């Protein structure tokens, strides 16, 4: 920009300058000029990502008191704590983006309670067995790692920096999940069945995790905007295919199957051909009408309300000063 101040530019010139910056690989910072569409797309993406980390800890934390050994209990506790930490990082990034709109963390929490702020489809699902606990770490975190690493170079600096920290910890999450499923896969017939059941139960949710390949399937999709602004590079379908490439051979190598007998790899098209999930289920979940939506939201609400006095007590000193 040199000697010309930003405020001397027209809106179009600002936009042009902004696009040049992100095309050159520069990072946009919280107080920089940015198009409204960019800010809104980031708020939507990052607040959902952040709140999903927190809601995502809920199905797993159910397994903390029931973990089969002390070491497994320590492992899953550490993992759940990491997810809460990811939530803290990401909400912080979202808060700086909503600040100019006069909003705060409190608004994000209230939006979650009122259903305006969504959380990821996988965290609306039940986790009835220890197999689910392992599967979440292995495949749900695996899917999350695929989408998160795709944004490590996001044009928005604070998000890229948060993701760098998060992905480093996700490596532990992936291995934690692998350790659990490996023990089950090499275990008794009953344990292998438990693992296969978990895969069958989660398969559809895992397909939906990446979002629809085209907007028609659910009525909306933000993938074009996030690609245009270099927040991510790959489409939903490309990410899903990456997931298949990484995990289908691993599932098969353990003698396990996915509940889609027609699925195969098409050498010519270089992609997996598979049955679409029932996208109506995703639409239901987006309205917080999934199997566990209400229960988990209620849990979050109760925790928020009954712990209000703790937050208040922690702040006492600052008020006295």
């Amino acid at each position, binding site marked *: 920009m040199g000697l010309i101040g*930003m405020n001397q530019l027209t809106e179009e010139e600002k936009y042009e300058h902004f696009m040049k910056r992100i095309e050159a690989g520069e990072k946009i910072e919280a107080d920089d000029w940015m198009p409204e569409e960019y800010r809104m797309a980031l708020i939507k993406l990052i607040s959902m990502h952040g709140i999903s980390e927190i809601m995502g800890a809920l199905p797993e934390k159910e397994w903390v008191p029931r973990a089969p050994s002390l070491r497994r209990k320590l492992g899953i506790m550490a993992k759940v704590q990491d997810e809460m*930490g990811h939530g803290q990082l990401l909400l912080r990034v979202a*808060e700086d983006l909503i600040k100019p709109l006069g909003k705060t963390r409190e608004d994000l929490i209230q939006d979650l309670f009122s259903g305006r702020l969504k959380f990821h489809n996988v965290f609306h699902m039940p986790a009835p067995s220890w197999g689910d606990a392992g599967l979440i770490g292995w495949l749900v975190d695996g899917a999350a790692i695929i989408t998160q690493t795709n944004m490590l170079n996001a044009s928005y600096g604070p998000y890229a920096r948060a993701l760098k920290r998060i992905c480093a910890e996700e490596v532990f999450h992936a291995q934690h999940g692998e350790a659990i499923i490996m023990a089950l896969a090499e275990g008794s017939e009953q344990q292998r069945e438990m693992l296969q059941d978990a895969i069958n139960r989660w398969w559809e949710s895992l397909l939906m995790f990446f979002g629809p390949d085209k907007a028609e399937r659910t009525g909306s999709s933000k993938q074009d905007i996030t690609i245009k602004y270099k927040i991510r590079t790959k489409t939903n379908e490309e990410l899903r295919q990456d997931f298949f490439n990484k995990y289908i051979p691993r599932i098969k190598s353990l003698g396990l199957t996915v509940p889609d007998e027609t699925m195969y790899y098409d050498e010519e098209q270089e992609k997996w051909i598979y049955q679409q999930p029932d996208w109506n289920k995703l639409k239901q979940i987006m309205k917080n009408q999934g199997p566990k939506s209400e229960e988990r939201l209620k849990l979050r609400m109760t925790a928020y309300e009954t712990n209000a006095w703790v937050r208040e007590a*922690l*702040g006492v000193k600052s008020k006295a000063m």
Partner: protein
Amino acid sequence: MSNQSHDFYQEFEVFSRKSDTAPMQYQFSLLAPNHEIALVMAQENFMRRESVADIWVVKRSDIRKMTQEERETLKRLDNKDYRMTKGYGYLKKKWRKFEQKMLDEKEILSWGGGGKQ
């Protein structure tokens, strides 16, 4: 409820040092109602595994950050060879002619005698 008011939480920037001789490194920001809680949160949020020797929390409002325009003036042209060792790399060949080694960064910084500091 008082903790729902807009000024309950403040923004803090977190810095930490891995070891006593490492530089202070920026970590991330967090929300806390005061410095004491900010310090506890910093440890919980950012230092769950890696070793750490010291942590600083600074209220964001006490930091004068650069604006976008100011940052854009920092861009350098790639014409500073004369200030950098890479502008003098040709000496390596010259000294070889005189059967001597060039005193490069690695060599000079080893003169303290202690190896790794």
